[in-house]
């Protein structure tokens, strides 16, 4: 049985009837130890979807799903208290901005130890020992000294390592990494990713890696989900999906990679921005920005179809040569 089973997850903000759908019918299934990448532009609903999984969407946001299971448990039906017992222990999350994600008023040791205390209890001494182990595992030099450091004394990379230590403190079975390297220097980005991937392999954690970095996903993930304006537009196994993208949006994202532009004067871009609340198209959500859009695309919404594991939301999916069918 899959570790995570999500069917038709929808997250809305704002008044009913006039709501903004940040996440629109997303389905996802994740096995134990699997690494899935979610890619898409800013505003495509990647982060909101993962926050919904963690149960961190607050009023006035509304989360609904036909099914949202973690390890066979219905997350939406669980009482708050039982759900919190899973959040932070069985599933953990790290965020985009490590520098602001740690509480400036508490020491690193306290913040890691707190996760242990809340979920596993134990005495102060054993928590301290475990915190030291964790700091060592995430590659923080002189962990004993770092225990009593405050977040403002750490660099961005160090802060992210602390965040990772905090997330893996209770040996979670699922780790959601929401653009874990976006705010870091390029050299540090690589180190943090290496760390995340090696931890994931060692511990056999399932991982959802949310990123802009297609290159990274193609190397690390077993499966990828491409999101656009709150919807899944294409999903499939890696590397197959990147070798032959079937959705024009995936293809356009690939073409926008700097590596693809060798010999060209200009990098290819996708014109326009992700539609917001007031300019949502009636047909395919990509139609105003898609160079292959037909009249049908402008009036009728395509649905996500295809064999299991290789689905695409397009009326005219691309063929092997990148031409619409």
């Amino acid at each position, binding site marked *: 049985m899959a570790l995570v089973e999500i069917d038709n997850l929808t997250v809305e903000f704002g008044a009913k009837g006039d709501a903004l759908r940040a996440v629109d019918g997303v389905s996802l299934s994740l096995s134990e130890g699997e690494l899935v990448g979610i890619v898409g532009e800013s505003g495509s609903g990647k982060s909101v979807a993962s926050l919904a999984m963690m149960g961190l969407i607050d009023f006035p946001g509304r989360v609904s799903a036909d099914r949202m299971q973690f390890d066979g448990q219905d997350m939406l039906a669980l009482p708050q208290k039982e759900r919190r017992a899973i959040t932070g222990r069985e599933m*953990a999350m790290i965020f985009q901005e490590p520098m602001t994600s740690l*509480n400036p008023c508490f020491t690193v040791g306290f913040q890691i130890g707190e996760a242990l205390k809340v979920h596993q209890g134990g005495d102060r001494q054993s928590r301290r020992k475990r915190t030291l182990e964790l700091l060592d595992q995430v590659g923080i030099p002189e962990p004993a000294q770092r225990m009593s450091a405050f977040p403002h004394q750490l660099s961005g990379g160090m802060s992210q390592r602390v965040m990772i230590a905090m997330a893996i403190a209770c040996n979670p079975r699922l780790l959601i990494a929401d653009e874990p390297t976006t705010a870091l220097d390029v050299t540090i980005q690589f180190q943090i990713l290496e760390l995340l991937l090696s931890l994931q392999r060692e511990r056999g954690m399932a991982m959802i890696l949310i990123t802009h970095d297609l290159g990274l996903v193609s190397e690390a993930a077993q499966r990828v989900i491409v999101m656009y304006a709150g919807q899944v537009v294409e999903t499939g196994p890696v590397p197959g999906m990147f070798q032959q993208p079937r959705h024009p949006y995936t293809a356009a994202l690939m073409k926008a990679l700097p590596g693809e532009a060798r010999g060209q004067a200009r990098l290819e871009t996708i014109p326009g921005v992700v539609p917001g609340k007031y300019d949502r198209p009636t047909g395919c959500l990509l139609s105003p920005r898609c160079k292959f859009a037909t009249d049908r695309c402008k009036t009728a919404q395509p649905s996500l179809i295809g064999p299991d594991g290789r689905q695409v939301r397009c009326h005219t999916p691309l063929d092997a040569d990148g031409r619409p069918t």
Partner: protein
Amino acid sequence: MLQFLLKRLALVIPAFFGVTLLTFALIHLIPGDPVLLMAGERGIAPERHEELRREMGLDRPMVIQYLHYIGGVFQGDLGKSLISKKPVMEEFLTLFPATIELSLCAMIFAVTIGLPAGILAAVRRGTVFDHSVMAVSLTGYSMPIFWWGLLLILLFSVQLGWTPVSGRISALYWVDTVTGFMLIDSLLSDEAGAFTSAVRHLILPSIVLGTIPLAVIARMTRSATLEVLREDYIRTARAKGLSPMRVIGLHALRNALIPVITVIGLQVGVLLAGAILTETIFAWPGVGKWLVESIGRRDYPAVQGGILLVATVVILVNLVVDILYGVINPRIRHTR
């Protein structure tokens, strides 16, 4: 941290001098002559008038008077009251516990209600509770103390008869002064019921004096909490699976307290200023009432000394707050 402290301490000195200069100048700017006021309606012979002025040192130039005064201050001598002939310091110290007691109770009232109300209003932002807290605190903030005090006396003391009108304790009890704090002294005395009486006398003045600080603290706590609740580390705390109680009461509050503590410190000045009115309304035998009376009598040394001592207390409290600020906020503690 040490440098931070030294910097704060260095700032105390000019503040202290400023206060001496200001009180000295202000009191001498008020028209009126203590000798004439002392003489009253009978009047006084011009020769005797001059003689008394010379005795009191009022005939010398202002600058000399000020330097003389400052010289005394540095030796701990604030002069003698022109009226009672007792040292100002002594008079102040006898009355000050009453003011501290009142201000402390007012502050406790303001913090114990203002802080939770502000936090709850922030957590329940936009609800009826939030709006009512904000409306009530705005009203409280805008309420003139003397009027508010009279209204409360009219309702609770006159109409309902729940609380006494004025004073520190019922005339039925005789309590020996040990600490000067009526709550403690009444407990120490063997008079049954004295403590209850002292508490009942404290209720209304504390509420009146605490209303403005309460309003300020509630509003400040609300806005500070709202700001903090939007921070990334609150999301992190929730992602750890912490209970809302712990997220708000520990992770959010600790950060929200930083500006709130500063505001609470500033309210000490407001409290002592408010004490002047409150003590006058409730015939509370404290420093505030004494200052008002001394101004009426043009008792220069008493007013100068009193204001200087009150100002020193405010300066010291703010210094303590600055230190607390460093304790609460590690980012300040570690700046070099």
